[in-house]
């Protein structure tokens, strides 16, 4: 029943490893996003995809690569993890509801790089 679901909820890994976070939405939305929340709780957009096409690509290291196999899924792959990548990563999706954009967040993935 969860509208936007992301897995895993927690991810603990060593520096240098490669990891992926998966996200799926069942709302029928065309647009999906990845946001990063740092240790000071500041939230910043990383990417957005619309119908599998990259729309927003903020200044994010090349080690971060989003992949959208279809419009209901947007996964985030991170290569060569660094200590500074430790954060909470939120997936979100949005769509129009009577002419107004509504955005829904997943429950977040807490990534800890040791």
């Amino acid at each position, binding site marked *: 029943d969860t509208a936007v679901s992301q897995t895993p909820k927690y991810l603990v890994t060593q520096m240098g490893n490669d990891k992926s976070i998966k996200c799926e939405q069942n709302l029928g939305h065309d*647009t999906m996003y990845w946001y990063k929340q740092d240790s000071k709780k500041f*939230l910043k*957009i990383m990417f957005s995809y619309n119908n599998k096409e990259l729309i927003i690509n903020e200044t994010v290291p090349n080690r971060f690569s989003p992949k959208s196999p279809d419009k209901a899924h947007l996964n985030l792959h991170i290569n060569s993890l660094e200590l500074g990548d430790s954060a909470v990563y939120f997936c*979100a999706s949005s769509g129009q509801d009577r002419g107004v954009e509504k*955005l829904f967040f997943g*429950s977040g993935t807490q990534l800890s790089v040791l």
Partner: protein
Amino acid sequence: AQTVTQSQPEMSVQEAETVTLSCTYDTSENNYYLFWYKQPPSRQMILVIRQEAYKQQNATENRFSVNFQKAAKSFSLKISDSQLGDTAMYFCAFMIPIYNQGGKLIFGQGTELSVKP
């Protein structure tokens, strides 16, 4: 550049009292949306209230209401009859829509609200 500023890092209020959280933003756009999100310790981002910039009437949702001053670029959140469950981080956010392609949500730094019994 679009920015959102929340000047109160922390606030506290007694249960059943009213509290107002401040937010200002900067943009040269005319069409945008404003939001308040709540993030309790569970980490979930919960939409509290939304305002379309073209609407002059202030949005309300039960105990939550906003004071939207477009000329002053101010968007404050008033919580009436505060409840213990309102304890959370509150984020003000601003979105410029991209036609049929969602939009970019820009967040303020957050205000940590504590409701005391």
